[in-house]
């Protein structure tokens, strides 16, 4: 169950990054509310997962799903630039974050 909570937490983080993009495009209250609810749900499920799973592991997987998913959403939904250098750089950042969380 903890793993399901963790995946849910990552997915909520990912869609919240999408809501942040939606807020920039539409500038409406609904996007803002979705953004707040999304991040709150993400932290809630992360805290549930962390009761069972080791903190470094849970945080690493949460960040990986959320930040990588957010970057992919940005490219797919918002047509953000996707040259090879940018994708390499984002991969390097997220990979380093996951590694640091796992060994800390």
């Amino acid at each position, binding site marked *: 169950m903890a793993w399901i909570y963790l995946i849910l937490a990552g997915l909520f983080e990912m869609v919240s990054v999408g809501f942040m993009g939606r807020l920039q495009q539409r500038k409406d209250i609904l996007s803002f509310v979705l953004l707040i609810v999304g991040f709150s749900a993400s932290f809630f499920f992360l805290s549930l997962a962390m009761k069972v799973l080791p903190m470094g592991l849970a945080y690493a997987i949460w960040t990986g799903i959320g930040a990588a998913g957010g970057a992919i959403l940005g490219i797919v939904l918002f047509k953000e630039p996707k040259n090879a250098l940018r994708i390499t750089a984002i991969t*390097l950042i997220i990979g*380093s974050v996951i590694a*640091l969380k796992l060994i800390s």
Partner: protein
Amino acid sequence: MKYWLLVVLAAVFEVGWVIGLKHAATPLEWFGTVIAIIVSFGILIYASGVLPVGTVYAVFVGLGTFGTVISDMVLFGSPVEPLKILFIFTLLAGVIMLKLATPDDSGTGGEQ
């Protein structure tokens, strides 16, 4: 460039609230932690108007982790390990590479 500095500032506040969540004990410290959460996400939303939102978030998470790992070592006596230093360098290299490869006016908001 200005907006990249804002993301750095958002990450500084993120480090503040991560430390707060772990160490806050008094009501005043908890109040500061909540303020830091609001400020860091506020800046983040503002910056994503000009820079791509996926990029802003990746850099925010990256720099936040960088700051948290450094402050754990400097302030809270967490061991300094060669592997940590290596991944700190690859992380910063990724952030700098991303900054150089992202046009300044490629934001999610604006006239699209």
